[in-house]
Structures are given as C-alpha cells and as structure tokens.
C-alpha cells in the first residue's frame, strides 16, 4: 500500500519533469537568433557557421533536437553556451555547488527557527508573546525577498552598522565557503523569507495537537509538561508541517535567483539572469531544468515523508 503510493508519486514526478522539459525546450526554441552565429560572431564565414550548426545538431528538426538535448541532460551534457563559448556544464558546475551551499545553510537555519517559534507561539496561545510572533511572521511573510535583503544590507553593511560585506566578491577559482562572512547576509535573507511560513504552520498544527485527546490524556496521567510537549505533541505536529517545509525548500530553488542577484552571489540564479540578459538559450534551458528537478525532488521527498508519517498507511502495509 505504502510502496504503491510512493511508486505512483515517483512515476508522477518523472512525468512532470518530462512535461517541464518539453515546455522549457519548445519555449526557448521560439527565441530569435542563431546560436552558431552567436558563438562565432558576426565575421564568421557561412561555411564555419554551417559546420558548427551541424556539430551542434542545429540542422536537425526540432523534435530530434529535443531528444538529443534530453539525452544530453542525463549524461550531464547541457550543450554549448553561446555567451561564454564553453560547455554549459563547465560554466554551471561550481555555481550549482555555490547555490546548494546557500540553500542548505538557509534551510539549516530556518527550519529549527520556524519550528521553535511556532511551538513557542502555540504554547503561549492568545498571550502577548504569541501575538508578537504572529505579527512578526505576518510582516516577514509579506515582504519580497529583495526588500528583506536590502533592509539587511542597509542595517549591517552600508549605513547603520557597517560590519558585513554587502556583496560577494570571491576571486574566480575560489569556493564561496572560503569567505564565510560573505555568506551571512544572503543566508539570513533566505532564512527570514522561509521561516515565517514554517512558524505559522507549526503554530496551527501544534494548537490542534495540544487540544487533542492524547495530549490531555498524557497530562492527566501526570506526565511532566516538558515530556508531553517533546514526546507527545511535537512528533504528531511535524508530519503536516513537513509538507510546508518542503514547499518552502522548493521555493528556495527559485528564490535564490533574486537573492543571488542582490548580493552578486556566484550561483545558478545569477547565471540564469546573465543568460536571460545575453539571450543564452542553452544556459536558460539548463538552469530552468535544474531548478525544476530540485523543486520536484523536494516535493517528492515531502510526499514520501507525508506517506511514511501517516499511521493509517503504515499499519496497512
């Protein structure tokens, strides 16, 4: 039963990714311009352009090129970048790692923060502390990520307390984590965007759980309050919240774009914006697919956690 459900989710995810790849490929196919001419420049002879077109399979019909491109995705061959002249995979490999570092750091900070404030808020339901948390989370949840980022930059980098770097400036070839101070502001920005949603969901489910029969039962038995919360209430509340956490983590895949642009962080988001500006089709396709894969995989994991943590399905298997 459980395995079947997970398998269904898996098949559905593959189908979704396939459909996304069709959408991405044929949308970028509509772009004006000839990649071969873009790589070689305006002075190139027609023979050289024709040769490169053949080498890049540009003379094949669109449907054949789609399958060649799709096959390339599986072997890590994302094609040639028209703006940089080299293979896309070479351009993106360091940037993917950099973006993942940022996303993982943001997740590591925001998940405990969100869960903590959610539990705190639920335990003090209706009191002033709860209201304060609710207002702060409502406010933060409303703000676009670049607004939070600029406020942080103004506060901690340029105007009020100039203690942190406002932009990332790692020399080429060096990895981003060699400069931890440059990671602080982008990470906090992403964490502040994500944490409020987790906190609000955690508060709502915790309140439901705290009102439930088994928590009342545990309290009546005389179980210490600390243990009631940590052993009886929190584990039951985490299941539904896992979905929201996953949605937020998936959101990070797209949300890093703006934050990377703001802090000039050398990740895939910055690469996407550059590619969009230079009409670099292959990079746009590659980054869109990478982001979609992260998005779908995280959602799949959330569904699997949801299925696994559902006791009704667990006992049936």
């Amino acid at each position, binding site marked *: 039963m459980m395995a079947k459900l997970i398998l269904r989710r898996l098949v559905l995810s593959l189908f*979704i990714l396939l459909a996304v790849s069709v959408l991405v490929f044929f949308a970028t196919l509509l772009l004006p311009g000839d990649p071969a001419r873009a790589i070689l420049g305006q002075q190139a002879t027609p023979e050289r352009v024709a040769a490169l077109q053949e080498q890049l399979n540009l003379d094949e019909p669109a449907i054949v090129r789609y399958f060649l491109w799709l096959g390339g995705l599986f072997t890590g061959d994302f094609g040639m970048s028209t703006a940089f002249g080299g293979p896309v995979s070479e351009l993106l490999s360091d940037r993917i790692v950099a973006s993942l570092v940022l996303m993982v750091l943001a997740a590591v900070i925001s998940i405990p923060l969100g869960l903590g404030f959610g539990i705190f808020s639920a335990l003090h339901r209706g009191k002033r502390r709860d209201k304060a948390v609710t207002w702060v989370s*409502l406010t933060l949840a409303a703000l676009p990520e670049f607004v939070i980022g600029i406020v942080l930059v103004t506060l901690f980098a340029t*105007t009020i307390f100039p203690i942190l770097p406002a932009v990332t400036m790692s020399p080429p070839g060096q990895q981003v984590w060699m400069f931890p101070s440059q990671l602080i502001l982008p990470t906090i920005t992403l964490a502040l965007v994500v944490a409020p949603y987790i906190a609000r969901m955690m508060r709502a489910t915790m309140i439901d759980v705290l009102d439930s029969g088994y928590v009342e039962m545990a309290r009546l038995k005389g179980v210490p309050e600390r243990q009631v919360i940590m052993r009886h209430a929190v584990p039951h509340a985490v299941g539904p919240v896992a979905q929201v956490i996953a949605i937020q983590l998936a959101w990070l895949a797209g*949300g890093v*774009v*703006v934050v990377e642009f703001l802090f000039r962080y050398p990740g895939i988001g910055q690469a996407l914006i550059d590619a969009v500006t230079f009409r670099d089709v292959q990079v*746009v396709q590659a*980054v869109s697919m990478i982001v979609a894969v992260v998005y779908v995989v995280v959602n799949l994991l959330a569904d699997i956690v949801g299925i696994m943590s559902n006791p009704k399905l667990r006992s049936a298997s």
Partner: protein
Amino acid sequence: MSENTVVDPSGMHREDQAADLKQSASKRTTIVQRVWAQSEGRIGVILTAVIVVLAFLGPLLAPVLTGYSPTAFADRPFQPTGLFGTDDLGRSVASRFLAGGALLVTYSVAATAVGLIVGAAFGMTAAYAGGTVDAVIMRCNDVLLAIPQLVFAMLAIVVLGPQGWVLIMVIGITHAPRIARVSRAATLNVINEDYIRAAEMYAVPRARIIFREIVPNIMGPLSVEAGLRLTYSIGSIASLSFLGLGMQPPTADWGLMINENRIALSIQPWGVILPVVAIAILTIGTNLLADAIARATASTNVEKS
C-alpha cells in the same frame, strides 16, 4: 480563537428568536465589517489605502510638488539636491518615487485578476466535471507548479519580451494553478449540497449553476486567495523590475529604482530606501488584509456549520 469574534446566536431565548428572526437576519455582519472589526484588518486596509492613494495621486503631483518630471534631469548623479536628492542619472528621486507606484499597483491587480479568473474557471470545471477532465486539468496543474514562479516568468519574458501584458499574463498564469487547487477543493465541498442537486433536478443549465450557485458559495476561499495572490503579485512584479526584467527604463518604477540606485546605497540611500519602504508597506498591508479576510470568512463557516 476566531470563535470569540462571532456573536453566538444560541444565547437568545426561544420566544425572542421567533420574533427576531427577520431582524437577526438583517443584522448579519458583512465580510467588510468583520474584516474591519479586527485590528489586523484595520491596519491592513489603512496601509494598503495609503500606498494606493500615493501610487495614483503621485504621478499627477510629481511635477507640481518637486518641480521636475520623473524623467527630467535635475542635477548631476547622486547629489543631495532637493528633498531626497538625485538618482543614478541625475533625476529627482522624489519625483520618480511619486510617479513609480501606479504601474506596479495596476499590473499587480490585473495579474491577480487574470490568475483568479483562469484559476477559478479551471478549478470549478475540474471539480464539477470530474473524471478524465478533472484528472487532465489537475495533472497540467502539477506540471505548471513544478516550475518556480520567477523562473517561469523569466522564461516567458526572454521569449516574449518585457512588455506590460506579458508581465500581467505570466504572473497571472503562474498564480492560476494554485488558485485552481483552492477553487477545486472549495467547489468539491459545495457540489453535493442540496441546493445544487435541486438546481440540477430543475434542469438549470450548467453554466447557470456554476455562476449562480457555485461561484457565490466559494467566494470566501477565493477572496482569501485573492488577497494572498495580490501580495505575491506585487512581490513578483517588483522583483522582476528589480532584476531589470520588468518595467524598462526610463519608466519611473519602485522596483527599477532600487536596481538603478543600489550601487550608491551608502552615499545616497534615498533612491533605494523610499521605494523599499513603499513596497514593504504595500505588501504588509495586503498580507494583513488577506489574513483578516481569512479569519472573517472562516468565522462564517463556523456560523453555518
């Protein structure tokens, strides 16, 4: 906790109830009153109204109040001339700030409307038709949901160019799958109610059932979605302008202003701070409003059940 705000009708004496039946029906609070009754709702309405008024009166007042039109050159770049100084090209920050909100607000509202109409239409159709139609619509939904909103918008803007209608359509369409989910769920809740069955029994045309019976009954969840999606529309359109992919120069726009002036954040911060504060107040306002609407409509459901 939301129950506290609802007037409990069961406290009434039985004999009063009969006499007051008509009166009590007329006393039912409207959604506007219930939103206004919450401090969040009041603050949300005020914050939103302040920025909307500023955004629409600003373009008219900009040349009068500051002496410069939004695109006129006032001084050299990043000088403290006038109230808030000059921007990266030497234009008046105050004038550009006053003129920079109208497009953002208009586009956001239009994008939300597109999302609501498309999403609700597909969601209701899926729920009402059921079977294969439902499955096909919801799977297409899943595909659209697998592309992050901003990446989808960038893809569309690369292909179609950064025109206004592209921004509106693309943000609207990225909202549609989420709204479709909500309206589908809401429709499934009402579809088995007796009044729908009664209408079907009388052979009321399907379109009429949808518009006269279903739409009014899913207005609650839809209005919550509308508020929430409006907040995200403002954020997305401002983000795209900030990335240089939304409003194009020389248009005065808050998102674009932040992009243009952020290199001088430490020497002439007004060109960044004013638009950031305006966008922040607007999104906080609409988000508080959405939350207040959610509570207000949730308490109607409590009353009904």
